[in-house]
């Protein structure tokens, strides 16, 4: 008997990944913990931010790309902290230079700093410019199915609706919208933001998501490296459960044991 069944890899813009868990690199205690947690997650795609280099800092200080080397992981630079399309496009161009022409990016354009909710108007504008400039754009967006459809129409290679607010750990607030987005999409749909618990990561996959992207759920766990392993298995379990197909819901009970042959019959 086999424990493992065949599954197609996650395909994003011509790249293939066996793991459907994508992780961020923020909020860890130090570089060692970052590297260990990311390894334990089994991820193949790692997102990071682009910021001004601290000048005058010890040039020998550990660099993020030392613990998540581009030779081992597919790096996904993001535009976190950008509030305009212009800033997001600039950041992506810097990232492409940083990574010697690597053109896969995670676009996020935020609306304000209390909700970090996506500004979809700026996001749509940035997506269009980036795609015309040759980028493969995985886009963070709201859970609005119409916006998701527009982003796909513009040519985004993956649509990534929020489960709930970034860093909130509130899980998937509107699973019905996520399902609507999945049903209409012909590019991968990944829940990005809001996952707090392993059960929520599994839920995203059971809904039919192609993957999950998370950061805080691992980095802010009491034991991040251990949680990274839990999330790896949760995403795998959710994916397998989705492919297996859950039982139908019933109005009443239905005994699992046969009625025939009972001793009091």
């Amino acid at each position, binding site marked *: 008997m086999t424990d493992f069944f065949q599954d197609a890899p996650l395909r994003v813009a011509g790249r293939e990944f066996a793991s459907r868990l994508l992780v961020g690199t923020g909020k860890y205690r130090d570089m060692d913990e970052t590297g260990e947690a990311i390894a334990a997650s089994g991820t193949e795609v790692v*997102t990071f931010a682009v910021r001004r280099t601290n000048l005058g800092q010890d040039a020998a200080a550990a660099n993020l790309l030392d613990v998540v080397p581009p030779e081992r992981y597919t790096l996904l630079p993001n535009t976190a902290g950008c509030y305009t399309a212009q800033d997001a496009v600039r950041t992506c161009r810097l990232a492409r230079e*940083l990574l010697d022409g690597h053109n896969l990016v995670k676009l996020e354009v935020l609306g304000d700093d209390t909700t970090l909710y996506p500004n979809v108007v700026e996001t749509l504008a940035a997506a269009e410019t980036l795609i015309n400039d040759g980028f493969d754009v995985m886009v963070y967006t709201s859970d609005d199915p119409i916006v998701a459809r527009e982003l796909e129409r513009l040519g985004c290679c993956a649509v990534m609706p929020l489960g709930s607010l970034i860093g909130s750990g509130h899980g998937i607030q509107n699973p019905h919208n996520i399902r609507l987005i999945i049903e209409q999409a012909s590019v991968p749909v990944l829940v990005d933001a809001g996952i707090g618990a392993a059960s929520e990561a599994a839920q995203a996959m059971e809904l039919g998501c192609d993957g999950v992207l998370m950061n805080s759920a691992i980095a802010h766990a009491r034991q991040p490296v251990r949680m990274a392993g839990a999330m790896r298995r949760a995403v795998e379990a959710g994916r397998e459960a989705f492919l297996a197909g859950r039982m139908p819901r019933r109005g009443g009970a239905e005994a699992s044991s046969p009625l025939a042959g009972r001793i009091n019959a």
Partner: protein
Amino acid sequence: MQIQLNGEARTLEADASVAQLVELLGLTGRRIAVEVNEEIVPRSVHDETRLAADDRVEIVHAIGGG
């Protein structure tokens, strides 16, 4: 001459190249990206790209983020 480097004023020898600035900062060989006046300066042309007074230079790198 004076330039704006990552948002702060900095005095630099006239006619310095991007490569010289990067070296001065101890960043040669580090994974960075350079932008001058909002245009990317590819690594391959750091040597030949001369800076001018009042140039706005940004030097960025990868950091942890989600």
